């Protein structure tokens, strides 16, 4: 077995801002800096310690050189800095990049993170006719753009229903169990509102067949974490979360590309992640699965190897997905109930895994073992999906 970066690095600091519907007067750089400062302090480090940086500007970039702008803004000047263009898969991918750079000796303390600003003073939807400008939007938008990714995932869900039969009555269990997790997490945006399957089924259809309570709510927020060498990590204040393996499957840019759209490319990433870590799906104790929609979770569970293709609708009925259950899933509430601050939503699934490994999740701590946690990220429309295995030293 050739040498890999398995176990070479660990996440030792985390920082998150609570997702909010709007954060008036705060821009993306200030939100990211705030989360970054929390992560650096959580690790017990100083700004001068940070010699690596992987920051992502989000999906509406205003130019290049984001690391230089953020470096100057925060007063942090690393000797290795790059970005991560993986959309929703960025949080997971950054953990892999950081581990690889550390394993290669390029840097020792890597700051990773991103943010999303919603000021609230301007309307969320675009006003006036827009011009299509890329080869893909030229052939999609004239027929009716969708709100976020709702329309694209709705078409995936429609095909899934046709092929495998799981309708909202089954998909709703995911929303309900994840909301239960959020009800026990004061940082979650839906902390105060419990829901039932009936609530999900009765919630309005946003893009047939997806109902409102099957979709994330866009929020403002930020998420950051610090990765360092395993030997350094052992001497730091928190229990390290070791990066054991991962990969990032690229499949398509556009939903009209060839292939079956209900197959999520996380399968290819998962196989490599498990091989690098030396584990299989049955070893996983907790899962943080990218949940932009219920249908996203179902396809990822299947492709990752937790249940056969087409059976996730029944699988979620048969298992308790709450943090107290037999298959703890998205223990912080998932992006569905914790909130999605754009690409920081996927990053918060990484930091939640770290918190669970540390046994530091408070009211929503998984009572059972949390030594091996599987995390996924998803970008675009099943365009690019990443898989990551994080472990405590008991699972190294």
């Amino acid at each position: 077995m050739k040498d890999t970066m398995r176990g070479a690095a660990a996440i030792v600091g985390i920082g998150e801002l609570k997702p909010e519907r709007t954060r008036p007067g705060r821009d993306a750089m200030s939100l990211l800096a705030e989360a970054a400062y929390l992560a650096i302090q959580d690790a017990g480090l100083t700004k001068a310690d940070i010699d690596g940086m992987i920051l992502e500007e989000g999906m509406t970039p205003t130019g290049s050189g984001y690391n230089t702008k953020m470096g100057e803004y925060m007063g942090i000047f690393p000797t290795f800095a790059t970005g991560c263009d993986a959309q929703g898969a960025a949080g997971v991918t950054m953990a892999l990049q950081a581990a690889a750079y550390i394993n290669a000796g390029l840097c020792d303390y890597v700051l990773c993170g991103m943010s999303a600003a919603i000021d609230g003073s301007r309307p969320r939807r675009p006003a006036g006719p827009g011009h299509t400008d890329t080869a893909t939007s030229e052939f999609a938008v004239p027929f009716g753009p969708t709100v976020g990714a709702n329309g694209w995932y709705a078409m995936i869900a429609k095909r899934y229903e046709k092929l495998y039969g799981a309708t909202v009555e089954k998909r709703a269990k995911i929303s309900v169990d994840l909301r239960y997790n959020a009800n026990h997490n004061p940082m979650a945006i839906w902390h105060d509102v419990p829901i039932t399957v009936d609530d999900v089924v009765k919630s309005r259809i946003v893009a047939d067949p997806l109902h409102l309570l099957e979709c994330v709510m866009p929020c403002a927020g930020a998420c950051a974490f610090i990765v360092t060498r395993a030997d350094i990590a052992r001497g730091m204040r928190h229990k390290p979360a070791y990066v054991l393996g991962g990969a990032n499957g690229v499949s398509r840019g556009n939903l009209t590309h060839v292939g079956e759209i209900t197959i999520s490319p996380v399968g290819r990433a998962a196989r490599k992640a498990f091989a690098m870590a030396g584990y299989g799906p049955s070893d996983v104790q907790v899962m943080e699965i990218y949940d932009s929609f219920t249908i996203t979770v179902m396809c990822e569970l299947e492709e990752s190897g937790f249940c056969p293709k087409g059976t996730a609708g029944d699988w979620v009925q048969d298992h308790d997905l709450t943090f107290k259950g037999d298959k703890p899933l998205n223990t912080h509430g998932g992006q569905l109930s914790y909130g999605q601050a754009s690409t920081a939503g996927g990053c918060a699934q990484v930091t939640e895994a770290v918190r669970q490994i540390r046994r530091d999740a408070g009211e929503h701590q998984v009572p059972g073992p949390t030594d091996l946690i599987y995390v996924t990220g998803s970008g675009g429309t099943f365009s690019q999906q990443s898989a990551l295995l994080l472990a405590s030293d008991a699972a190294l």
Partner: protein
Amino acid sequence: MATTSEYKKPLPTPSHVSRPFWDAAKEHRLTYQRCTACGTRVFYPRDICPGPECFGVGTLEWVESSGKGWVYACSISYQPAHPSFAEDVPYVLAIIELDEGVRMHTNVVGIDPKEVAIGMRVEVAWDDVTPEISLPKFRPIQK
């Protein structure tokens, strides 16, 4: 048909690579590309062949489609992202697979949205939205 300034929905901006598609569309001809080196059929238009073993640059030629296909995926849109579509709600967003094997985004028209089903046979129904642009929408094939 509206004048270009009256039509409020997003219009495609033809590029050097897509111009032939929109020119043929104006004549109500549905076209796609096929690689002369490896035979791969391609849509949306491009200069480079995406065939799995092909390095073709500039090897794609335009071919006419029968205009017939089937509904690969669909969704009724109840919530338009663009205000200009509000009057059309509910409308059907769909991915059609042409008999030739390529897929395209479109709307399915001429039928109650709730009747549109995956697998349904459809044929192109041109929507002449402006003097320059005709959009390929699809309707159920009349038996």
